[in-house]
């Protein structure tokens, strides 16, 4: 398997050269990172190049790195990671691009390259507020009609801002600010490296 991954990463290096910001081989997976400007071009080459031939887009996932490692994040905040699969060559790659502007993240849409990107990009837009330029129908998909905000951003509380209930007096459903107290049973902890490695356990 690893010889195949070597071959894949070599091909990727040959085809893209300087365009690649980074190429990481970890956990038996290849991750390539490109700039937002190159994103669409790289996607097209990944699909059409005869030695790569990623004909299937499996998934697109929005990412918000703002609290990564429980510490302030220095780089760009929003990214979009696409998982690609080549049925012909039987290999996978992860393509990631960071959006340049944190306040208004914009990336190119890959809908023209892979039609299956349509809903995945709608989802990333809905949950993270990443704008995909060239998307034919960028509507919200998972959240409620008329929902405000992008719930998967790290600064959005888990319980949200509004709750809905049936008001018997008004005889209809009303929205009101949430009444749930936020609570955390197990705190989120990032331990230093080699934590608990005392040599005898």
């Amino acid at each position: 398997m690893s010889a195949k991954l070597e071959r894949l990463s070599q091909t990727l290096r040959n085809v893209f050269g300087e365009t690649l910001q980074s190429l990481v081989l970890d956990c038996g997976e290849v991750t390539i990172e490109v700039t937002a400007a190159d994103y669409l071009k790289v996607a097209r080459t990944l699909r059409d190049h005869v030695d790569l031939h990623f004909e299937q887009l499996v998934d697109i996932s929005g990412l918000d790195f703002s609290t990564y490692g429980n510490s302030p994040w220095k780089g760009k905040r929003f990214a979009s990671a696409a998982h690609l699969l080549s049925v012909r060559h039987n290999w996978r790659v992860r393509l990631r691009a960071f959006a340049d502007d944190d306040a208004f993240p914009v990336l190119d849409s890959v809908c023209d390259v892979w039609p299956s990107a349509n809903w995945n990009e709608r989802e990333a837009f809905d949950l993270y507020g990443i704008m995909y330029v060239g998307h034919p129908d960028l509507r919200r998909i998972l959240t409620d009609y008329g929902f405000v905000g992008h719930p998967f951003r790290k600064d959005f509380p888990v319980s949200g801002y509004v709750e809905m209930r049936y008001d018997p007096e008004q005889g209809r459903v009303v929205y009101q600010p949430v009444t749930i107290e936020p609570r955390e049973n197990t705190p989120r902890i990032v331990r230093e490296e080699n934590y608990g490695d005392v040599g005898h356990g």
Partner: protein
Amino acid sequence: MAEIRNYTINFGPQHPSAHGVLRMVLELDGEVVERADPHIGLLHRGTEKLAETRTWVQSVPYMDRLDYVSMMCNEHAYCMAIERLLGVQVPERAQYIRVMFDEVTRILNHLLNIGTHGLDIGAMTMVLYTFREREDLMDVYEAVSGARMHAAYYRPGGVYRDLPDRMPKYEVNKFRNDKVVRDLNAARDGSLLDFLEDFTNRFPAYCDEYETLLTDNRIWKQRTVGIGVVSPEQALAWGFTGPMLRGSGVAWDLRKKQPYEVYDRMDFDIPIGKNGDCYDRYLCRMEEMRQSNRIIKQCIDWLRKNPGPVITDNHKVAPPSREDMKANMEELIHHFKLFTEGIHVPKGEAYAAIEHPKGEFGVYAVSDGANKPYRLKLRAPGFAHLAAMDDMARGHMIADVVAIIGTMDVVFGEIDR
């Protein structure tokens, strides 16, 4: 001259054939669908966000509730992603147990799909037959995990416990007399493996029964042959996986192509369709159940002969045994740390995909080294399938929309997440 207008109708979310909470806005020209716009998210619970606030192990039961007809497969992908990040080896016996239960789950899922698909398009009897067998398999779930559906049986590093030596039994009550109960319990005297083996011996005959009811059924064929035809190129472009892809003639199955656990030691075949219509996909699912049956038999044989541990002995990942915990200070510390703080997963990202009954179910986990996931993305096969609804339904009659929803095997737990 009369004015001709297109009709727009709402299909669902309360429609019984919407398989849950699908709301679809259909634009109709007479009875022909011009455009289908599925509205999803009515069952959105934010599982991925919730998982970010729970420790890694606490999220295992959430996975059951994604695709709530193939519970253990979801857990499997999730545990595999964590194991890949941790670099933990799963004991061989646990791998066999996982494969066996994945296949039990596949049969459970396909039985539900074929039964309800039949129900949707006029074959009322199917569901009665398929749910009879589902009951047996649910009992297997119950015996091993204590829950009929939401098992939470797989854990990072293995499975929660070894297979039980006894099966739960029926009891006499005012509806069931002594004789009935004795017949029902006939196969339940032995261990879980005995019961499952008995089931695998009975199951091919049941499959023949289903085939008698459907495969040559004139009405069933009228409703499914030539409906929702997808070419192999389209299927790949739309991100189809599983029976939806194989029905179009692409021989792609992760169990064969990118084998995980012990699938490379199993002897089984991958059925593919020819025409890419609803009928071919139905035939694929039928054959897959028979193949799953074969795999289960092979797993039972191996599991009988090879006892061993079922969860990793790395106590930074899996808890130590109760006895060790009480006798050994080191293990007590491990136990305490695991149950208060949870597993720490090293920095990195992993995408683990399995051949879920519906297609490729993937878990993309990003960890920053904490005791909770930094980001968890669940790749649901039904999401990609439903996204192609517009293209698949266009030009079909409104009644065929129901057949297409049925063949997609949508479950909203996983699509809305």
